[in-house]
């Protein structure tokens, strides 16, 4: 009978040994993560300021500020760990998918009750998470059904409350990321990441989870099944941002993948090619809200985009994962 130690030792991938993770951890943290949260805090600040001056849902100025801030969030939303996860902040930024329609129900209830929580940012932050964030604001700006409820003054107060809450949330994330960053760049006993490998694995998980979410949820929900496509389930379809979110997330994930694979030029090249194809397919798809998934041609194009993301996922798990010491175990990958 062989000893257990021997079995274990033989099964650890060779690539996992003795790599200096510090340069990549520093690069991803300083050049990829922190600027995204700083940018988000800036853009949401503009949104919160704009909405004080102009809360008319149809306003071009307001909608432009909304769009820029939402862009910044989508470009950071794959970094869903550490300060982003605290207090459900990521869900408070974008409560989606909303399979049970909690967002319109929550907003309608606020309007009907003229809930005074809109008068205090601290109070609004304590209301249902479904009534917070960019998808709630989208309802208020783009959903005609909302524009018919209650009175103009309350709707304006609600729009301001949601925008202010988004800004506060973004500021909190930005501030906390500044203080959390050393945990990633200096893993060890004082960090939740005890080694460079653990910190790298967190970043790798953010990459693969981000790819999975974009392929399976952002594209999978509107695709539905061939017999029953679901264009009404597309993310942010009312503001026609669904495809834009796919493109922005791919661009952000591509940047992160390039940094993570920096020490392995062949893998970096494979990832770059695959991302370029997916981004190209997204950019040439003329269907901003995936409304055409219920036509044969429209569906094929969205499926092709989804396939090209699956290809990136495959390269990440087969080529990149093992170099980062990611366990590729049969059960550890199962998630059941």
């Amino acid at each position, binding site marked *: *009978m*062989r000893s*257990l130690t021997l*079995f*274990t030792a033989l*099964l650890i991938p060779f690539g996992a040994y003795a790599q200096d993770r510090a340069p990549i951890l520093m690069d991803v943290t300083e050049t990829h993560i922190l600027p995204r949260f700083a940018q988000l805090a800036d853009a949401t600040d503009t949104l919160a300021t704009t909405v004080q001056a102009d809360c008319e849902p149809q306003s071009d100025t307001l909608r432009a500020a909304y769009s820029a801030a939402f862009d910044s969030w989508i470009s950071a939303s794959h970094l869903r*760990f*550490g300060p982003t*996860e*605290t207090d*459900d902040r990521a*869900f408070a930024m974008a*409560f989606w*998918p909303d*399979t*049970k329609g*909690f967002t319109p129900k929550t907003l309608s209830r606020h309007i009907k009750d003229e809930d005074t929580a809109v008068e205090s940012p601290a109070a609004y932050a304590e209301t249902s*998470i*479904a009534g917070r964030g960019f998808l709630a604001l989208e309802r208020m700006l783009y959903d005609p059904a909302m524009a018919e409820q209650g009175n103009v003054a309350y709707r304006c107060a609600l729009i301001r409350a949601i925008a202010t809450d988004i800004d506060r949330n973004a500021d909190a994330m930005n501030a906390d990321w500044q203080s959390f960053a050393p945990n990633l760049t200096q893993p060890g006993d004082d960090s*939740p990441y*005890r080694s460079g490998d653990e910190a790298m694995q*967190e970043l790798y*998980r953010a990459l693969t989870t981000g790819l*999975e*979410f974009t392929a*399976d*949820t952002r594209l*999978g*929900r509107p*695709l*539905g*099944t061939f017999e029953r496509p*679901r264009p009404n389930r597309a993310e942010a379809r009312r503001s026609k941002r669904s495809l834009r979110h796919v493109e922005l997330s791919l661009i952000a994930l591509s940047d992160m993948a390039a940094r993570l694979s920096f020490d392995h030029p062949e893998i970096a090249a494979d990832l770059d090619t695959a991302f370029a194809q997916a981004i190209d397919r997204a950019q040439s798809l003329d269907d901003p809200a995936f409304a055409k998934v219920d036509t044969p041609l429209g569906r094929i194009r969205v499926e092709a985009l989804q396939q090209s993301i699956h290809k990136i996922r495959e390269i990440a798990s087969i080529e990149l994962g093992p170099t980062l010491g990611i*366990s590729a*175990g*049969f*059960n*550890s990958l*199962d*998630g*059941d």
Partner: protein
Amino acid sequence: MTNRRNFLAGLAAASLTPASGWSSVGAPVYLAAGLFPDGSYRLSGLDNAGAILFSIPLPARGHAAAAHPSKAQAVAFARRPGTFAIVIDCKSGHVIKRLTAPKGRHFYGHGTFSADGTRFFTTENKYEAAEGVIGVWDANSFVRLGEFASGGVGPHDIRLMPGSDMLVIANGGIETHPDTGRTKLNLPTMLPNLAYVDLSGSVLAKVELTGAQHKNSIRHLAVRSDGLVGFAMQWQGNQIKHPPLLGLHKLGEIPRLLSAPERQQSDLQGYAGSIAFSTDGHSVAITCPRGNTLHRFDVTSGALMNAYTLEDVCGLGAGAEGLVFTTGTGAFGSLNAAHAKISSRQDCQWDNHLIPIQTTD
């Protein structure tokens, strides 16, 4: 058969005695699904040292299986969101029946027979409504008789409470829809629970994980002969937190959550795959394939007894010396006081669960 008799003599609880029907196939002690080198997924019967006594192909990746309390029959499930389960005559290796989830539902991968062997219960997702249901099947004909609400979202494991007509269900709390694969759709609002129901589905008791634990998905169950329920969890919250992944609950009492010291708890990466009580019932363990770790606790004190490092460990069950385990690298082994001892190594990847063949009355 000497080994087997010795093994049985070592079992403390008479309730673990396998029924006679099983001896005809070379008396497997466990069932396990796995992936074999030719790419086939198979359900295998194992002896108490992990040797394969029979092996039957499955149409796709399996998850768990349920052994009939008296006949040499087992129901093997597809991995979620699968829609098939097959009833296998473990003597001949033939598929006797095929269960297909009704329209709008898929299986989660677990099921259990009633004590008298006349009914079979399956955990299912009624996915358009995002409601958990329990399918009720005639355990002879495997005709579907009906269904009832599971008492929550995402029912995963289900067990029969010993000496009763009561089921305990692990409602994991996570909403999924087959259109979006395994994507979790309701994490901010998820609310897992442990539901106790009678065989017609009336909820007798429900234990919810609320507050800071609301993202701790209850997935897998083990039941001790006195009705103590062990549950294993999978953390869906912030990964820099390391909450308990094992709970114990006795009806009418408050659940106890068991955790290793922070340093060791953080090895587990928030994910437990299987849970089992030891044969003497004094200890309870969880397997943690992401952390390549098995943690064993003392049931009475709730303290961590041992932490074993085991590559891709997941399957877990009661065994002659206390507990046995399988791994995704094909190993089968047992735990004694301080050591994990691998007794066989098959050329396959054992899947999540190891199912002891036993009567439950």
